[in-house]
Structures are given as C-alpha cells and as structure tokens.
C-alpha cells in the first residue's frame, strides 16, 4: 500500500536517511530511535513536506508527490509541536481544518461532532484553545488529523510533553483509531509504542536497522539480559542497561553474553532491546 523504496535524504553534506526500504500495510508502526536518528525526516518525507534526494515513496504504486492533493486527501498528519490559535475554540479550529481539507460543510459538522466525542472533548468543544492543557491540545490535533478519515495517519512524537495519565489516554486513543489504516508514530519513548505497535521500525547510523514485531526484536536479546543486585561487581564486557527496584532492593539490568555473578536471567523488554541497540550512541 505505502512503500518506501531506496530513499535517501541529504541536507547538504549531511545524510539524514540512507537507502531506506520499507513497506507499510494497515496497522500501527512505531518509529523508535534516539533523537536525531531521522524519524522526523522520514515522517516529513511521507507527508510530502520534504523531497527525497534519491529513491521514491509510492502509494498503491504511484509516486506520492505526483499524486499531490489526492495523496494529501488521504493523509492525516500531526506534526511535532503542533501549534494552535489561542483565541479560537476547538470546534472553530476543526471547522477551519475541514475547510482546508475541502470537506463539504454538512459532512464536516457531522465528522467534527463524532471526532470531538471520540477524543473526549465534546464538553470542551466551545472553550478557547488557550484554556486547554497540553494533552487536550494534542487530542484536538488528533481530531484534526482524523478529519478526512485518513488511510494513512502520521504522528510525529505525539506524546512529547504529556504527563503519564495523558500519555496512556493518548495511547488508547491511537489504538482505537488504528483499525483499517496505516498509523505511523514516531517516538523515542519505548512505553508509547510497545503495547500498541504491531511493527517497530528502528534506525541506526541513519540507515534502517530493523522493521519487526516487538516480540521478535526482544527475542534477539533472549539469554543476554540479566538482573543483578545494584552492588554487584561487573566486568568491562557487561553493560548496564537500566536501574530499577525489586522486592529485595535496588537492582541493575545488565547486557552480557555470559551471566554475571549472582545474576538472574530476565525476559528482555523492548526498552532493554532499545538500550542494547543504541548502547554505542549513548556512550558517544
């Protein structure tokens, strides 16, 4: 349905993405990588805000840039740092968005009512956006992106700046909206996607590292992640992934091919996999 074919994006001498190949079918895809890895660049390429230096992006076999407004009509996009007009209400802003999407007035009103209900803002619909919390504004953003009932939904770091309660609410909302469409969500927060994404796309050194299910990504590290007490002595080849608490006190999760002394084998989580994959970048 949506395919990225040998896409390279360069900004002058800097290569943001190199020879990326991906194929997207309906479902939730999480773009998971540290900041600066090229997630936003890929999202912007998919939103036709940037042009690929090399390669092409196809929707049902046709170049997305050649499809123009036709492609933009089936696209819902929530950019990072979505702005808003403080003096307008959520309903007024949605009406404006509907006009920019060329939706007929009657259809737009019906759709706006439905979406305000879906995102839980029916009661706040006629309040000014300046009175909204960050989470409420992001929900307005989702409603805006969903106006045309898009077949492709692009969400660029949608949970940045939200408190944990709003993050959970947002996650549930994305999950509910993901039926029969491609949802591509970029984030560097593992918990945002590990439960809702069917496929995780990771980039390393500006190249595609993997596109696989969370379970298969985690399985690659099976037998290599260990839990040890915080005071345990570790060798140079044993890498601390994270710190945590257990019933017996503070513990460390460690990446190692051989078990450290006193270690207990644990099931690798997506966060362990993420930290293991990007361990070199963390050290740099």
């Amino acid at each position: 349905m949506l395919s990225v074919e040998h896409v390279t994006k360069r900004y002058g001498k800097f290569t943001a993405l190199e020879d990326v190949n991906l194929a997207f079918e309906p479902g939730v895809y999480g773009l998971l990588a540290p900041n600066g890895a090229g997630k936003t660049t890929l999202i912007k390429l998919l939103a036709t805000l940037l042009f690929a230096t090399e390669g092409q992006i196809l929707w049902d076999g046709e170049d997305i840039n050649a499809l123009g407004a036709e492609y933009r009509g089936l696209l819902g996009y929530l950019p990072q740092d979505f702005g808003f007009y403080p003096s307008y209400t959520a309903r007024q802003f949605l009406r404006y968005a509907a006009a920019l999407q060329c939706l007929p007035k009657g259809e737009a009103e019906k759709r706006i009512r439905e979406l305000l209900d879906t995102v839980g803002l029916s009661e706040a619909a006629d309040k000014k956006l300046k009175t909204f919390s960050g989470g409420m504004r992001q929900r307005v953003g989702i409603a805006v992106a969903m106006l045309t009932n898009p077949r492709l939904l692009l969400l660029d770091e949608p949970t940045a700046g939200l408190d944990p309660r709003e993050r959970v609410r947002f996650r549930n909302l994305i999950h509910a909206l993901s039926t029969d469409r491609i949802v591509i969500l970029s984030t560097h927060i593992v918990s945002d996607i590990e439960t809702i994404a069917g496929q995780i796309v990771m980039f390393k050194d500006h190249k595609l590292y993997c596109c696989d299910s969370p379970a298969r990504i985690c399985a690659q590290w099976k037998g290599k992640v260990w839990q040890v007490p915080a005071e345990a002595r570790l060798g140079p080849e044993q890498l601390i992934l994270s710190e945590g608490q257990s019933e017996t006190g503070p513990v460390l999760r460690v990446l190692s091919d051989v078990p450290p002394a006193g270690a207990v084998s644990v099931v690798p989580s997506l966060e362990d996999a993420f930290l293991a994959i990007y361990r070199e970048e963390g050290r740099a």
Partner: protein
Amino acid sequence: MTCWNEQMPAHGEREAAISAILEQGLAPRQGLAATLRTALDVRVLFFGVADCVFLSVLAAVLMLILLPAAALQMMYPAPILFLISPALYALLLGLTAWKEAQSGLLDWKRSCRLSVRTVTALRMVVFGGSSLLVWVPANLWLWKAMGGDLPLSWMLGISLSSLFLYGLLSLICLEGKGRGRLIAPPVIWVALGGLLLMWDRASAWLTALPGVVFLALAGGALALYLLELRRFCLGRRRGEAYAFS
C-alpha cells in the same frame, strides 16, 4: 522459439486504445480555477489572521491621514506616493505571513488538501484588490487637497505602478527560502523610496515623466504580477508543478 503472427493494430487504433485506457485510469484533476473557487472562503483566507488585517488597516488609515500634510510640504510628491502606495499591501501580506510562520501550523497546513500556495495566492489577490480600492479614492482625495496642481492620471500611474511592482517583488522574494523572503521586499522598497526622497534629482526626473509612462508601467507590472501569481500558485518556479492538482 515461438513465432508471433498476430496482426498488430494500426497506428490510429493503437492511439485510440491508449487514450481510452488513460481516460479510464487517470482520475480527472481539479483545475486551477476550481481550486481557487474552493479556497475563496473567508474562513480559509482569514482564519487566525483577523488581528493582522485590523492592524494593517489601522496603520493604512493613519498613513492616509498624514499623507496630504506630508505631500503638501514636499517640492516633489512623487517619491512619497511611490513609497507609500504599497504600504497597505505590504502590511497585510507581511503581518499575515509572519503570523502564519509563528503559529507552528505551517507544516500541518502544507499537508492539507488545499495547498498553502493557493491560499497565499488568493490572499495576495484580495490584498491587491483592497489596496487598489483604497488607493484610487486616496489619490483623488490627495489630488483635491493639492488643489489639482498635478494631473490625477499621473498620480494614479505612480501609485498603481508602485503597488503592482511591489506585488511582483514580493512574489519573486516568496519563492526564496528563509526569513529573508518576507523581510526583503519592504526593506528593498523603503531603501528605494528613501533614496528617491533624499535625492532631489531623481525626484525631479520622476516628476517630469508623463503619466502615461506610469500607467503603462502599472499595466505591465499588473500583467507580470498576475502571470507570476499563477506560476506561484502552480509551483512552477520550483519545479513542483507535477505535484499540483
């Protein structure tokens, strides 16, 4: 090896078949006029920028009040007319574009079905038309205030050519990149106007030119402005025409 003896279609038959396939396979795309009609909606054109329009009109009214006094004090009123005529247009365009850039919504708008270029182009037409509606009576008013010393056609010629040349300059600059594309037109215009104001010989030369020259210049600039506006709307300068529909 298989030998094919099937008769190939004649040239005309083949072309007709290709045309029929293309006609069925390619969805008709919305033309420029249809797109502009869709965008010609007050909600689309002025949403979130009503304050900019109000401020620009207020500033233009103040300028119009001060204009006769300034013009009467000068030996040659041509430079002040040249400088001030695009002011309303420049304010409207500059302030709305600045607010759009600050809103944090530009990326999202660029992903919408109705392109930002189309909306900007339509705003330019509306702003240009409004400026025209303001400057024709303003010139009449100024002409009466000056006791009819200067030909009205000459004054109108300077005003309109200045307005359309500024419009053309702002369109060309808009095709550039970075913040400079918004700042460059007013800076260039003020520098040029300032030079004319300070340099008496240039003012005298401008005053000596017949009105018909300015009217012809205004006509030419308007034609170029409209042509350039169409190119801008279709994204032809940047080679994005193929993406327009």
